[in-house]
């Protein structure tokens, strides 16, 4: 537990010193929100949720790549693999909550006639899924630039694809639009259920991807015997 928390603490300290990452985390969702505020009801909510997810995924991507050079040494020093990625995730989840809370308050007072509970659900799922997605991408793609391209593509597709179609369900943040429809357009509760299921399944799948990718990269090699 201590080890996981130490990793989490150091991740937060690192991130707090990366001014570029902080600026992006703070400004990007706000920009998304304000850009759509004049539109019809609820568009800004949809966009701010997407913006939050994108910003958190990007932060997770950078955290993952920066940690790479240190991980072999940490492994040798006695960390288990799961402590390494869980520590980073705990830090990112904490960061996500701290980042989303003000936006929830903003929506609470700025937007009316929407289901606030459901919006809270979207944000919580976002906090859960976005870091998993970013960390998974960084674990699979060694270089930041390629990871960023993947994130951009996913977010772009998220905005373009029709959420009712089947293709859109493959995207990691599809639940956001589905529950958003429930919250903003006051549709049936089925939308909420489908969204929750999608979010939960996505989270579990991404966690497996992260665990497996980290596990392979930092595995104990078969030719070494510790006595």
């Amino acid at each position, binding site marked *: 537990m201590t080890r996981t928390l130490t990793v989490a603490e150091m991740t937060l300290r690192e991130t707090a010193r990366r001014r570029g990452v902080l600026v992006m985390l703070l400004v990007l969702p706000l920009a998304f929100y304000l850009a759509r505020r004049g539109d019809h009801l609820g568009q800004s909510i949809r966009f701010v949720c997407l913006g939050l997810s994108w910003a958190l995924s990007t932060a997770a991507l950078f955290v993952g790549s920066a940690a790479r*050079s*240190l991980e072999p040494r940490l492994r040798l020093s*006695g*960390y288990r693999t799961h402590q390494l990625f869980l520590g980073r995730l705990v830090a990112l989840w904490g960061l996500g909550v701290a980042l989303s809370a003000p936006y929830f308050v903003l929506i609470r007072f700025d937007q009316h006639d929407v289901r606030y509970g459901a919006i809270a659900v979207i944000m919580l799922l976002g906090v859960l899924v976005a870091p998993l997605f970013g960390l998974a991408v960084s674990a699979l793609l060694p270089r930041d630039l390629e990871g960023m391209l993947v994130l951009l593509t996913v977010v772009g597709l998220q905005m373009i694809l029709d959420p009712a179609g089947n293709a859109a369900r493959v995207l990691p943040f599809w639940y956001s639009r589905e529950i958003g429809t429930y919250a903003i357009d006051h549709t049936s509760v089925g939308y909420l259920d489908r969204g929750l299921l999608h979010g939960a399944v996505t989270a579990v799948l991404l966690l497996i991807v992260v665990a497996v990718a980290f596990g392979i990269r930092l595995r104990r090699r078969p030719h070494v*015997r510790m006595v």
Partner: protein
Amino acid sequence: MRYEIWLAALTDELRRHGVGPDLAGHVVAEAAAHLRDSGEPPLRAFGPPSAYAAAVADSIGGPAQRARGVVGPVRLRAVDITKGYGRRTVLSGVSLTVHAGQVAAIVGANGSGKSTFLRICAGLTGADGGQVELHGTVGYCPQAGGTADFLRADEHFALVGAGRGMPRGAAVRAGGRQASALDWTPGGEQARQLSGGTRQKLNLVLAGLGDPDILLLDEPYQGFDRGTYLDFWHEVWQWRDRGRAVVVVTHLLNQLDRVDVVLDLSAGGAGVAA
């Protein structure tokens, strides 16, 4: 150069060259007396402190040789390591055994597979054939990297120390002690703000943090000035005297007469350590 400065520098240099503290004190006192009697400037009478210290160290035949054969149990045993990339064989049938209280040097030309072999021993790279036995905890220092850009030195110590089960205060203090042996006092700078040589000092201290039984060092002295380079080898001998097994990849030969085992990989990637 004024007397006191020169004499202080001489004290430092004698320590670096492995002259024991008692003898060093006598040497400095005698030099001081000579300078007082003759009235000559130190640089003319004795030359630069490092040169005089080297001459003194030479005259006394270096630190007393430990009785060879007083070694401990096997800490690292690599047998028949083979590694190839595509069709190129980098290592074929390389073996190395290092006991506690021994220093092994891995030498060879560039590209002869020294770093690869060390990484295989650390378990960071896979081997195509062969076996490695590690008896104890391992510390590894790569040629570069191994540090986090945005963390401070004491945060590095805390992080790596936690892995070894050290409480934070103890880890930070231990790191500070090892750093001062390399003539460095860590401040509040982040790793990315340190100079190349200082960052490598951090790298080396992290490798030795928590006192691992086996130290695997891959030419860790990149960017060290001459004084720090000598301090580094001083640390290596200290680790040896404290019963650690140390493996150093190096292509600089002048310290080889004091290591216990030499593995030469330049002969086409096959080698058995003497």
